[in-house]
């Protein structure tokens, strides 16, 4: 890991440990969940070159399963999160093995189509509670010991999960596997001609991305104590695309920044009524017209350092 990356990670960690003293912890936890979600998405888009327009499916489904596991099966939070994450992984495998055979906009659309089916399922299925969602999910005791109703414990759990997830993504990008992925994105026929079975690589990164998105969704269910349709709806898939692009696609830190900006915006613009949509729209237009590489992308260009 280059020194400046270590420095940024360390700084970020320090900042996040201090953050709950200055900001509302649940709000930071929300940012963390979305940052992990956006990073997982960016792994697929920025490094795998695959634009999925249906990532809400994994995020939302994991959130439902985790909520159900914690509330109905009475599992401890870590087991519930693992359940949710695994289900997202399996779902990612099923959808991924069909979708990766297609490219570009068709890939995006096929992932969207499956995500809509997942949405439809969530609307209809008994266990998701329809549009009321699964409410009053208990936070429970971590490992049966630590009471997560304490906001501090919960905060550090979420911080640990998100940070571990993001570091794992960092490692994936910079692994031999990541190198092959990059080659495939750059020139797929050439990678094939060198003997790489590209579909397996694409599927692998798809499943990894879906699983990590699931981890984010499951964690969110524990934080907010609810799982609802908004998390599986297509607008959520759109939101994660926006976070990633705004922060800087294909950069390590971009999605984190993008998630922070968008979540903050949703939170602090909440009093402005219909102006929220107008302001959000303006921000997107401005960012496309003026900083196309995203916030971190632009900084990375100025400092001439990959971030």
């Amino acid at each position, binding site marked *: 890991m280059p020194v400046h990356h270590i420095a940024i990670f360390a700084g970020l960690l320090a900042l996040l440990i201090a953050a709950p003293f200055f900001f509302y912890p649940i709000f930071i936890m929300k940012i963390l969940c979305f940052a992990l979600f956006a990073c997982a998405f960016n792994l697929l888009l920025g490094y795998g070159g695959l634009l999925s327009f249906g990532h809400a499916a994994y995020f939302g489904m994991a959130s439902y399963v985790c909520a159900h596991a914690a509330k109905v099966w009475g599992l401890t939070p870590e087991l519930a999160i693992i359940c949710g994450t695994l289900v997202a992984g399996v779902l990612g495998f099923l959808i991924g093995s069909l979708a990766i055979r297609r490219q570009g*906009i*068709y890939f995006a659309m096929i992932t*969207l*189509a499956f995500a809509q089916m997942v949405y439809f399922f969530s609307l209809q299925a008994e266990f998701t509670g329809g549009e009321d969602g699964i409410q009053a999910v208990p936070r429970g005791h971590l490992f049966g010991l630590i009471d997560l109703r304490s906001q501090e414990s919960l905060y550090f759990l979420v911080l640990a999960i998100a940070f571990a997830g993001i570091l794992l993504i960092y490692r994936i990008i910079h692994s031999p596997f990541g190198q092959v992925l990059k080659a495939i994105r750059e020139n797929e026929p050439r990678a094939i001609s060198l003997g790489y079975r590209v579909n397996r690589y694409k599927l692998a990164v798809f499943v990894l991305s879906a699983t990590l998105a699931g981890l984010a969704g499951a964690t969110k269910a524990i934080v907010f104590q609810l799982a609802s349709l908004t998390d599986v709806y297509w607008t959520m898939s*759109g939101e994660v695309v926006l976070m990633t692009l705004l922060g800087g696609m294909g950069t390590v830190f971009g999605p984190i920044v993008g998630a922070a900006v968008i979540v903050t915006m949703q939170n602090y613009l909440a009093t402005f009524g219909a*102006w929220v*949509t*107008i302001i959000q729209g303006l921000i*997107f237009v401005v960012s*496309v017209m003026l900083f196309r590489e995203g916030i971190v992308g632009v900084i990375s260009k100025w400092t001439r350092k990959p971030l």
Partner: protein
Amino acid sequence: MFELLGIPPQALFGQLLLGLINGSFYAILSLGLAVIFGLLNIINFTHGAQYMLGAFVTWMLLNYLGVNYWWSLLIAPVAVGITGVILERLFIRRLYHLDHLYGLLLTFGLALITTGIFKQIFGVSGLPYQAPPLLSGGHNLGFMYLPNSRAWVIIASAVVCLATWFVIEKTKLGAYLRAATENPTLVGAFGVNVPLMITLTYGFGVALAGFAGVLAAPIYAINPVMGENLIIVVFAVVVIGGMGSILGSIVTGFGLGLIEGLTRVFYPEGSAVVIFVIMALVLLVKPAGLFGRTA
């Protein structure tokens, strides 16, 4: 009298006809999207908002200026088209050389702004629009009562779709447009005014959305979010037809209307998702959509 799966055949005809009418909206809207995507390589997420704009302009024309529906059919699409031309000149033209993603993001932002402004001004409950005398009332076809307004939708959209298809696929102008999508520099070097052509094309695609909006005004609720839910379905139609394929989007638009109509009879709950199921199936079998050209 024999019945098909418990539905009398007359009723089935009626349902199919209704499906076709819905398909007319899909066809016009997806046609506009296909024109814009096919020729500008921009995924126009503002399309839903522009459709909404068409309906609102129609309403404003009647309520502020007393201009009737028939004139609106002409004026509203032109007005919406002009807003499109302005957007193209100001923003979209700076994105042609970039990945699709940026066009998507920009037009998504523009859609948010447009919808937001209309929500701010008109609220979300919607506005009433009275169909013109010629279109209120209807005919009894024996198997169903067909309101004139609906019959008119089919006719108008079929004519517009065919004309558009002809211009783009069969005329010289269309060939310029298609060529300019791929290599605008070269087409310019042949002596064609490409920037103007592209601006007008975007304007035209948007005007089609506006036209659909006018057709919708007497039938559907006019509110700022009327296009929001439609847009994703229309995207699906374009993809099934084959991104950018003009004929594909028309045929698929009408076809899916029919299929959706049938689903509404046999499995109504599924009628919102059936299009996506079909999209997944089609893409798995035909990677570039039904009428798409592979690169």
